[in-house]
């Protein structure tokens, strides 16, 4: 068995038993990053020296008997989390020179737990995208290949670097953020488990803001258990985030073995979309059968406003982005392009610093918030958002969790779906509604498409009931027995 086959739980056991040192584990991963990253481009900034220092500290902590479940575990940090002293770009040119003087709460919690950070993972620029092709630092290659084809596929997005790194085993696990599907869709495209917790569960402090009412951090890992271990450390109230939930964090790993006996699982009719890959619909049916076999009661439900999720999202998210990204003006940090006067400097800086997708979204957001259009677009979208929330709260009076596919297709090729922005946006059709409602949702790898690519199923839960999401996800994982591995990986 290779060192790269170890999950977090398995590695932690070996570390505790002194069968393996954190320095050995990190050194192996540092080498794998150096070997595979030039091809995959999963990291924007690798930090091997820092990782080695952290690994040494982890070994000292293990020796002293004060280790946690994450001490000495090498992970990738999405380059949207501010890391003190380590460049944080959000995959944008405009933040190319930015070295944060402070640490995000989530990355600080992981650091305090003893996790080792191998580097800053690539993403779509400012997390805006579903394919990682909008990164100013180049696209990420999905380590998976279609059967008999060498064509480069996208890893999904926006947490595409995190996904590719974990799938290719150049990170043991990773952090992601999810605004409309940015953890779940790339997890599905790369055969990983990934959870977007309830809005408010993880602090947003120090995460470069995209759409503040939707952004939520979460883990991406090889299996459901590893996600639970990571979320135990990442979650919790934070005074520095005004929307952080003042709630106790349950022990998520304890929920994994609960089983689904007696649980009511909802199957929403509106997710059976025309144009969905038939392999995905067949997998969904399998998932339903697996849960039924394990004692769950399957209930047909309706989430009637599902089709309006994407149009609401593509008003609300750009509106919030246009406001959040106003701070990038060449004055206090980041890129500056000199101009004839102050306004000219702003305009030149932002023209040079932002990529085309980011500009598009800022422009749409500016328009829907502008005088005369606010009510017709933004206010209307916020009202429909309330109806989408109501769809979920109504459904959750009848069921404990909801099962759907994660994405309407498997990973697609670099350069496909590029005809117009709306075609790309359709990737998020199954993930956006849970984001708008703020409920937790997890993607679990559950099978392969006919051409050999991983597919995911999504489990959606009630607000702050990640435990049921983990229990149902673990049940699917056990039944699916997903063990396929990508072609490109550290061995």
């Amino acid at each position, binding site marked *: 068995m290779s060192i790269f086959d170890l999950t977090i739980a398995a590695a932690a056991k070996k570390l505790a038993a002194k069968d393996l040192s954190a320095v050995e584990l990190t050194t192996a991963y540092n080498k794998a990053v150096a070997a595979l990253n030039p091809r995959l481009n999963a990291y924007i900034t690798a930090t091997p020296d820092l990782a080695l220092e952290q690994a040494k500290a982890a070994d000292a902590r293990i020796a002293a008997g004060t280790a946690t479940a994450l001490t000495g575990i090498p992970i990738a940090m999405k380059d949207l989390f501010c890391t003190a002293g380590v460049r944080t770009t959000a995959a944008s040119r405009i933040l190319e020179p*930015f*070295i944060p*003087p402070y640490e995000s709460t989530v990355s600080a919690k992981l650091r305090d737990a003893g996790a080792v950070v191998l580097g800053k993972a690539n993403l779509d620029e400012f997390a805006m995208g579903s394919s990682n092709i909008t990164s100013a630092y180049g696209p990420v290659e999905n380590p998976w290949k279609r059967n008999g084809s060498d064509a480069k596929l996208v890893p999904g997005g926006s947490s595409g670097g995190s996904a590719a790194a974990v799938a290719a085993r150049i990170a043991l696990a990773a952090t992601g953020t999810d605004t409309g599907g940015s953890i779940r869709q790339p997890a599905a495209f790369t055969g990983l488990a990934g959870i977007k917790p309830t*809005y*408010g569960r993880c602090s947003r402090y120090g995460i470069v803001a995209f759409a503040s*009412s*939707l952004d939520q951090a979460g883990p991406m890992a090889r299996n459901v258990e590893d996600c639970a271990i990571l979320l135990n450390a990442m979650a919790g109230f934070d005074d520095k985030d005004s*929307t952080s*939930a*003042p709630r106790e964090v349950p022990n998520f790993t304890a929920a994994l073995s609960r089983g689904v006996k007696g649980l009511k699982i909802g199957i929403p009719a509106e997710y059976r979309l025309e144009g969905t890959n038939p392999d995905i619909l067949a997998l969904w049916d399998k998932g339903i059968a697996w849960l039924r076999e394990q004692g769950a009661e399957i209930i047909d439900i309706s989430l009637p406003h599902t089709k*309006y999720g*994407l*149009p609401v999202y*593509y008003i609300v998210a750009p509106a919030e982005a*246009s406001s959040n990204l106003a701070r990038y*003006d060449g*004055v*206090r*940090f*980041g*890129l*500056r392009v000199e*101009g*004839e*006067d*102050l306004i*000219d*400097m702003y*305009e*030149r800086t*932002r*023209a040079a610093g*932002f990529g085309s997708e980011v*500009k*598009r979204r*800022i*422009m*749409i957001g*500016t*328009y829907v918030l*502008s005088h005369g259009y606010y009510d017709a677009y933004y*206010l*209307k*979208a*916020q*009202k*429909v*958002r*309330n*109806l989408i*929330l109501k769809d979920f709260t109504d459904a959750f009076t009848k069921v404990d969790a909801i099962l759907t596919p994660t994405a309407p297709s498997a990973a697609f090729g670099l350069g496909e779906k590029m005809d*117009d*922005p*709306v075609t790309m*946006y359709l990737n998020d059709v199954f993930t956006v509604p849970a*984001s708008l*409602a*703020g409920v937790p949702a997890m993607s679990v790898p559950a099978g392969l498409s006919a051409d050999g690519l991983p597919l995911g199923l999504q489990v959606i839960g009630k*607000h*702050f009931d990640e435990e049921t999401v983990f229990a149902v996800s673990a049940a699917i994982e056990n039944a699916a027995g997903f063990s396929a591995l990508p072609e490109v990986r550290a061995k």
Partner: protein
Amino acid sequence: MSLDAATVRRIARLARIRVNDDEVSVLQGELNAILGYVEQLSEVDVSGVEPLSGGAQMVLRQREDQLSDGGIPEQILANAPDREMNFFAVPKVVE
């Protein structure tokens, strides 16, 4: 509703993004495609529905109005493209 080139320029100006003529025509097509797509919301009846601004199932928390941080000008200015003493420096605004 369809955006004309002048409106695209006006939005770009509001958003403080410099655009050239070629970009205006590309953006015009893309923005109109997005607006056309979101147009389907007009078929939803929202009478009596309150707008939902956020995903948090809570009322925003307030804290005591007191200093909790500060005295770190060097950290705050460390990423400044230009500075004068403890100030961010910008092109002259007032003659």
